[in-house]
C-alpha cells in the first residue's frame, strides 16, 4: 500500500491502515441503502462497468466455487 495522506487528527482505531479491498467490500455491499437526492445510487451501479472490475470479477456471474480445483490440462488417472 502506498503512503496515503492521512487527514489531520483522527488516527483510525484498529489497524493503522485498513486494506482498501476490505473497506470496499463493506462500503459497496454493506451499509444502509437509502434513496438519496442524487438520481444515481451506488446500489444501482452496474459494477461490472466501472473500475471495480479491478477487484470484482462480476457481481452477477457466479464465481466458480473455490473448492473445485481447476482441472489440469493433462489429467492422467
Amino acid at each position: 500500500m502506498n503512503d496515503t495522506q492521512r487527514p489531520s487528527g483522527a488516527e483510525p482505531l484498529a489497524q493503522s491502515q485498513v486494506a482498501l479491498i476490505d473497506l470496499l467490500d463493506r462500503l459497496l455491499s454493506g451499509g444502509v441503502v437509502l434513496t438519496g437526492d442524487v438520481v444515481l445510487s451506488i446500489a444501482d451501479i452496474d459494477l461490472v462497468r466501472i473500475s471495480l472490475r479491478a477487484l470484482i470479477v462480476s457481481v452477477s456471474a457466479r464465481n466458480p466455487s473455490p473448492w473445485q480445483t481447476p482441472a489440469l490440462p493433462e489429467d492422467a488417472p
Partner: protein
Amino acid sequence: MTESVFYAYAVVRNAAGLDTALEGVVGVAGAPVHMVSEGPGSDLTAAVSPVPAEEFQERALRRHLEDLDWLEAVARAHHSVIEALAAHTTVLPLRLATVYLDDGRIRAMLHEDAELFSQTLQRLAGQLEWGVKIYVEPQPDTRRPGPASAAGSASAADTTADTGPGRAYLRARRAQRHSREECYEAAREAAERVESIGRAMATDHARHRVQQGELATGAGENVVNDAYLLTHEATAEFRKRVLDAAHGLPGVRIDVTGPWAPYSFVAPPGTEDPATDRPP
C-alpha cells in the same frame, strides 16, 4: 464558490461528545463533518458534510467511480467518519455516496425511516463486526522425503524403470495437483471450524464475495471472506479460536480484520446480500 450538496455518512442516536468526536475529522472532499438532528422529540441524528454538487451529480459520479484513486479517497474519508463516531456510540453506516440536497432533506430522511433506524440501532447496540478471511497457499509437495522433483528431472530416489522427462513431468504435476487438493480440503475443514465457532459465539454472520483481482493483495487464494457480528464480551475468545482454527492445517491461512462498525449487518438477519457466493 460551487454549489454544495450534502454527503450523509451514518445515522446514530444523539449522545454527548459526538461533536467533539468529529472535531478534526476531515470528510469527503475535505470539509468538516457536522450532525443534523431529526428534530424535537427524536434522538436520531445523521453525520453530514458538504460536497461539491457537480462532483456528485449522476454523470460525474459514474465517471468518478471509474477512478480508483477518487474511490479510495471517498471510501477512506467515509470510513474515518464512521470510525470517529463508532468510538462513542452505535453507528448505522450508510452506503457509500448517499447524497442529499440540503439539511431539510436529511431531516425528512431521518423522519421517514425513524422506526427502522431505531430498531436497527437497538439490534446492533454494543456489537461490532469482525472480518474472517481464509486463504489457500499451496505448499511445496512434502509427502515424499527429500526435495520434490522438479519437472523434467527424474528423481534419483525413483525406483521405477521408466523415468523419462515426460513421465517425471506428469508425476510432478500429479503430486502438485494432489497437494492443491489437500490444501483445498484443509481450507474446507478450516471453514467448517470457523463457522461452528461463529454459530456458537456470534450474533450474526454475513458472507462477502471472495477477494480477487489486483486489489486482493493477501498472499494465496482467498476462499472465504466472511463477517461476524460479535458482542464486546465475545470478541477476545472468538478471535483466539478463529485464529487457532488453522492449526494443523498446512497450506491454510486465516486473517481476522476489525473491529469494524457493523457495516455488513445493517439489514435485518435473513435478508441475504444478493452478491455473495453460496457456501459449498
